[in-house]
């Protein structure tokens, strides 16, 4: 009888200890997820702010790109080059 009580007590304590360890581990994982989520959001907003059209346009202007002044359309299917026989 005494042995049974001791065994049950040991099982109970082991179980509780495992639960406590799992709680701590779960908290750590949650904190890690939150940290990664936070870093992802920071990275995303950094990427977005660098790829906005206003930023791209001003960078392009700094690098010497210009808007085309005019465009040429071919009205007819004219031959561009003819082979002389």
């Amino acid at each position, binding site marked *: 009888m005494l042995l049974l009580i001791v065994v049950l007590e040991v099982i109970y304590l082991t179980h509780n200890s495992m639960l406590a360890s799992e*709680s701590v581990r779960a908290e750590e994982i949650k904190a890690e997820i939150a940290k990664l989520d*936070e870093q992802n959001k920071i990275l995303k*907003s950094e990427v*977005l*702010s660098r790829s906005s059209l*206003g930023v791209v*346009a001003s960078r392009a202007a700094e690098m010497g790109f210009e808007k085309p002044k005019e465009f040429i359309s071919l009205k007819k299917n004219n031959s561009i080059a003819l082979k002389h026989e």
Partner: protein
Amino acid sequence: MRYKNFSPRFLVLILGLLALYTFLLGKLFYWQVVRAQEIKEIRDLQSTESLELLPERGEILFNDNFPIATNNINYLTYANPKIITDIPKYSNDLSGVLGYDSASISARLNQDLYWVRLGVFDYKRKEKIEKLNLDGIGFQIETSRYYPEASMAAHLIGFVGKDDQGQDQGYLGLEGYYNMQLKGKAGKLYVVKDALGNPIVTDIREEKKVDGRSLLTTVDRTVQYIADEALKTGVEKYGAEGGSIIIMEPSTGKVLAMSSFPKFDPQKYYEYDGDVYQNPAISKLYEPGSTFKVLVMAAAINEGLVKADTRCDICAAPVQMSGFTIKTWNNEYHPNATMTEVIQNSDNTGMVFVGQKLGIAKMNDYMEQFGFGEKTGIDLQGEASGALRRESEWLPIDLATSSFGQGISVTPIQLLTAVSSIANGGYLVKPYLVEKIFEDDGEEIEIEPKNKRKVLSSAASEVMKWIMVNAVEAGDSKWVTLDPIAVAGKTGTAQIPVEGRYDPNQTIASFVGFFPAQNPKISMLVLVNRPKTSIYGSETAAPIFFSVARDLVQYYGIQPE
């Protein structure tokens, strides 16, 4: 009888135990059934911690999936003055990073408090603060709305403020119209704790939060950028008070861009005057002036009352009506002008001729058919409908002035939607901005284009289209063309009614049109509010229209047909 053998003491004992048992049962019933809810609440209070799980607001995306509106994190930064020993040095160190003067930081830290707010900063600033290694500084993550393209399409987006309970609330534009979809639903996390206050990992209950739905819009980021830039340049160049550009796909009603100026920064909406928030492209009523002539002419052609070559027999001189004299805009008259020439010359007397052919009943009917006096149903908060007068309220002079776009109020989106019916074979489409809604669980809701009704026959719209092409190529804006792409269009110069009369020096200059005329892919309206350099649409709105059109031809690779 068997019980005769039991002694009275034994019976008393049995009855006593029975009574006790019944009492205990009753007590258990009382606590576990009658007061069960109350006990549960007390237990929850003592052993359960509940946390509110805030949903993330859905994103609003351009049609290339780049966010117009998304969420960003910032850090609420605070300090505990009770554990700061050297406040002057502390304030001095912080002032270099926060950008405040050290005296104001010092004043805050000298308060007899355990928690002092220092401000809300982005992660770069937070990292700098952390590098100072100061005691008693803490950070709390805050989510805020972020608009990567800053004030681009500001009127179209709206903004996110707070409601009367301090919760995020979308106002105006897409943020306002789709607020219920975007905001999501808060959840709750219940953590049961043991006697020592540690969470019991196997006993965590959660009411799941539902993040807001995201919206994929029809708005093209590049087209919106082109429109924003052209409008800003145009408004400044012509010394105007403001303006609007709407660009639409006439066959479907997809809005590709909607720009208004002056604009605001939706992230710092509180720094602007409230009047700037309203989107004039959908909420401002104005007299359309000559741009309206194409609709009246289209109606008369549709009814078979005039043809492109029908000649006007009242166009030789000003028209007298009900004590009023109706003149042309430049006081030049064109006897026997054809209907094509009436539109080309933007001839008011010619339009009176058309209006009289149409009559009050049909004029009223077509205005309703073209969608005036009712909201277009565009998915933006803040749309105005305007009002049409009832048929019985029309006077002959109203018929005459309405035929050239005076005495009737419309919104820019109404006018463009109506003119688009000439481009698409006669259908009045419902303009729209959101084509897909993404649910939290990955489901997608697709929104299809809608035709509201057929207003014009294909033949009538085709005739009207080429009358408008002629107006561009031979009319008052012929100096701005898109050769070799055929553009159908019409200028408008509407005087603004001020205190019961028209002010000749204050106008709303406009140009409405579509291209390429053979198979229109783009319809566009440009409005310039009170330009100073010239009051005419042909010299202000038309150049802006063609500047944008030229960029769009290149962007979409539109070829002449």
